[in-house]
């Protein structure tokens, strides 16, 4: 059984079609005028305007390494982040802290710590898994480079981005 769609009877004015065209033209020109007079909010003009000040605290930008108030690098090269990283962006080469060092009891430190920012998917698992609160996703989002090598963040670059983070759990307290 065919289903009959009920069509409304159009008046002569509606059948002429031109009034509807004019009404449509009026709507579109109003939009045009509103943009021209700046009444419409348009997209943020990115390189000139940035949303840096509006970034939320939990924003997941580039992963970075942090140092604490004692100037000690918090990473102990346990490599948990390396193992959990879904795109395998992190490469760590652990090294042993030498005898006589103030932080000898920490035992290990990362000799090399690389995050390949071409691979990184900004998932934040490294930050979640880190037992030492050493790796944090900060608010840097415009990570660019002209070569692949440039896009691999080495240890010094990671500390540069991360900076010092205070008020974290201090597991390696000297009195303990």
């Amino acid at each position, binding site marked *: 059984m065919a289903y009959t769609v009920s069509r409304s009877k159009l008046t002569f004015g509606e059948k002429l079609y031109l009034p509807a065209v004019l009404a449509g033209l009026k*709507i579109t*020109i109003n*939009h*045009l005028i509103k*943009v*021209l007079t700046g009444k419409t909010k348009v997209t943020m003009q990115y390189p000139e305007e940035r949303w840096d000040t509006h970034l939320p605290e939990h924003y997941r930008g580039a992963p970075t390494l942090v140092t604490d108030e004692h100037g000690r690098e918090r990473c102990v090269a346990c490599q948990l982040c390396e193992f959990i990283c879904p795109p395998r962006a992190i490469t760590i080469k652990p090294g042993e802290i030498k005898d006589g060092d103030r932080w000898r009891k920490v035992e290990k430190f990362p000799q090399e710590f690389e995050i390949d920012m071409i691979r990184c998917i900004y998932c934040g698992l490294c930050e979640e898994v880190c037992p030492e609160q050493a790796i944090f996703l900060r608010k840097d989002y415009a990570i660019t480079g002209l070569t692949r090598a440039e896009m691999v963040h080495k240890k010094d670059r990671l500390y540069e981005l991360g900076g010092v983070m205070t008020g974290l759990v201090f597991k390696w307290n000297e009195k303990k």
Partner: protein
Amino acid sequence: MTDILLGLVWALVKAVGLVFVIILPMVSYTVYAERRVSAMIQDRLGPNRVGPMGLLQPIADAVKLLLKEDFTPASVNKFYYWLAPACAMAPSLMALAVIPFGSNLFGLPMVVANVDVGVLWVFAVSSLGVYGIVLAGWSSNSKYPFLGGIRSSSQMISYELSLGLSVIPIFLICGTLNLPNIVKYQIENGWLISPIWLKGISLTGINFPLLVSSIFSVDALVKILLWVPLFISFVVFMVSMFAETNRLPFDLPESETELVGGYHTEYSSMKFALFFLGEYAAMITGSAVIVTLFFGAWHVPFLPNDPSQFPWLGDLVLGIIHIAAFFIKVAILLFFFIWVRWTLPRFRYDQLMRLGWYFFFEIALANILLVAIILAFAPK
């Protein structure tokens, strides 16, 4: 002999000047305007990165299109495939030859070819543009271009009729096909879009007796009567021009949603650009014809056309003002084309054909009859 040669040289200078100095830059900036206006209508900003306000965008586009790979698919009919883009671009530029785009400059009339067939030439040549599209559709040897080509040919043939018939009232009124003469008629009797013209008013002063006599006269009454059919003929002509130039709401030959890219699906690089620019050139030609027929071409209201009436305004300045006036009018119409495009949805194909054959054709015919009756009873 030297006269003929000199005439030829001047005609060439005018043609080259018109096409390369005015029309081609205008084409590329129409593309830019299209993008900016469409963006603003949709509450966006459009291309604003290249140069101040994005004004160098057309140059960037041209460079991009020139540098792209010019790919010819293996399955195409090479000869016609190469011929089609030229066929799409050339007719719209050729049609401009008879358009009077200015009064006089250095004592030369600003029309490339002042021929008596005038508007017939425009129709004859601009309808050749369909060959570019048909050839492209056919030679591409692919489904979607083929459908686009078929649609285009039937659409253009349908609307050619109402396009041609809707301007016959103008020839009945003016009694000439020669475009410069039609412009002259409009200067003397008012633009054909609104033939009620108040005579005797100009920047130099008001001539009251002439003004009064132009309002209270049988002539004025006839003109008010003529205004109705002329307006109908303007609407029919305008809409048919939209269909003729494949602009929305009649852009079925290249409807992206159904036919991928339509007739130019298989084209790339500069060959695609020729189709693309050809469409915009056709738009400019169409607007130029509308301006010439209905909006008094280069005529500026209330500005005397004879430089002797306006001694402080030089011959040269007046000529330039007239050329500028013509292209400002064209630009306004182009804006209207763009504006309509971003307002109306595309017609269904049966609606398009119905509109062309059932309505516009009949309206245009009835309109001719109406004008003929009015003119038959009007005192000479």
